[in-house]
């Protein structure tokens, strides 16, 4: 198992970056202002790109440098720029219609992290991987997924929902970098571009939302019931 073969310094570096990403996910969860949300996402993408490069360095996967550069470029620069343009066009500044206040969602997020930790340590124990960075990677991956779903459920702004889905994808990417760094290059590239296409589609849809429905928060989309 590749994760147990990293040198201890590398493992602690990965754990620092993984936990930093998780912390940024919490910053996203707790922020009301869409620009803060977006900047935290950009910082998280950069951190994950750094993690990818570090895995490539310590694990001797030279193609991961390429992936890291592309991640930093696409997830860290292009995607936030696209979403910034959407924010500017929409003239929406902050989240007004959330179901739970940010502090309550922070506490629920902490509970979700604990749940993810319990699941991952159970998995780690059955696989005899306790104490290695794999359990941490699993925890962070699962908790970012759960936090992403929490964001989708709790927030009402269209942009927050886009960013929630991007956090979901970021979580999977983070986990896959540590757990399966040898995944074929083609797959990683296509998933990266896929993300770009997703955001482009969302951008167009948001424009339609504003033009035809007149609102940007999903709470107002209540006409189709039953």
């Amino acid at each position, binding site marked *: 198992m590749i994760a147990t073969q990293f040198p201890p310094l590398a493992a*602690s570096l990965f754990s620092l970056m993984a936990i930093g990403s998780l912390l940024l996910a919490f910053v996203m969860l707790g922020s009301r202002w869409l620009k803060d949300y977006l900047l935290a996402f950009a910082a998280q993408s950069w951190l994950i790109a750094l993690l990818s490069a570090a895995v490539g360095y310590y694990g001797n996967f030279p193609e991961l440098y390429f992936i890291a550069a592309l991640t930093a470029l696409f997830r860290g620069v292009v995607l936030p720029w696209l979403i910034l343009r959407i924010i500017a066009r929409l003239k929406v500044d902050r989240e007004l219609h959330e179901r739970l206040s940010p502090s309550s969602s922070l506490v629920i997020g902490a509970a979700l992290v604990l749940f993810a930790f319990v699941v991952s340590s159970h998995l780690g124990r059955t696989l005899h991987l306790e104490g290695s960075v794999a359990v941490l990677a699993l925890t962070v991956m699962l908790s970012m997924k759960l936090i992403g779903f929490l964001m989708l459920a709790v927030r009402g702004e269209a942009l927050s929902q886009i960013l929630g889905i991007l956090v979901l994808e970021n979580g999977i990417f983070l986990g896959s970098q540590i757990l399966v760094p040898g995944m074929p290059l083609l797959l990683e590239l296509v998933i990266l571009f896929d993300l770009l296409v997703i955001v482009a589609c969302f951008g167009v849809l948001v424009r339609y939302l504003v033009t035809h429905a007149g609102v940007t928060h999903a709470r107002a989309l209540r006409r189709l019931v039953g």
Partner: protein
Amino acid sequence: MRDVGLQIAQVATVLFLAPLLQGVIVQWQERVQRAQGPGIFQPYRDLWKLFHKQLVVPETASFVYWIAPIVAFTCVLNVPILIPVLTNYPLPQSDMGDILGGGLILTLGSFMVTLAGLDSGSAYGGIGSSRAVLLAILAEPTLILVFVGITLLAKAMLPFVVNHLLVADPALYWSPAHLFLVAAFFILLLVETDRLPIHSSTHLEVYMIEEARILEYSGPLLALLKWAGMMKQFILYTIFCNVLLLPWGLSVQGTALGALAAAVALFAKFLFVAAAVVVVETMQSRLRYYRYQEPLAASFLLAVLAIVADQLR
């Protein structure tokens, strides 16, 4: 014998340097806002003045009114015995209580003052007490979680063990668990020492928490209460610096010179933390009352993350 002397010196350090810390923080705050500032020794002058003023007791006051300041003062006098202030090895009676015990003693003092605020039956006392209890409900679990995190970090409940471990093991010092604990404790420090964004020591009625509780006091009792508050701040800074953030600079041998140097180093560390606190406070504005949960939720979250990170170490 020397250790007993050192123990007394620890308590004396806290007793006599606490107003100086308060004075420095207030002075720097004023200077940052381009005002003159009252000078760093002003709290000493305030305490001196209060001790020489007349004591005015409300008619509705009971025995609680009298004993609350004394209990609060005594509690904060006890805590320096338990924590590393001057030396990094345990002194006599320091095993009276561990980290959690120290926290509980501090809470006891605060609890007595809350009771005193209710005791005289005035409206402001009631407001202050209820708001203070709300803040305590939000802050105490976080504080206990932080202490649990510290305990899990070192696998021991004595602050001295934590101190030794952090000095000896840089990997532990820079581990995510420790860094998150520092961040969580910093937020708690801001809240418990009444800094913005929850500035409770203000005289504005809409916001006052601390001042409302002690509004009925005057003269020497007020001096005791204010001094107790300053000492509590000093103690929290001590825990923050000596146990978590900057565990170096404590006397190892226990000589007189070493103790003196440790006191000076302690104050230097405090200046560093005070600078950070002043910067943070100047950058923010006061939060609305119903949003007090937000920084505390963030602190709670950081403590949970620290515990999780610690388990995964």
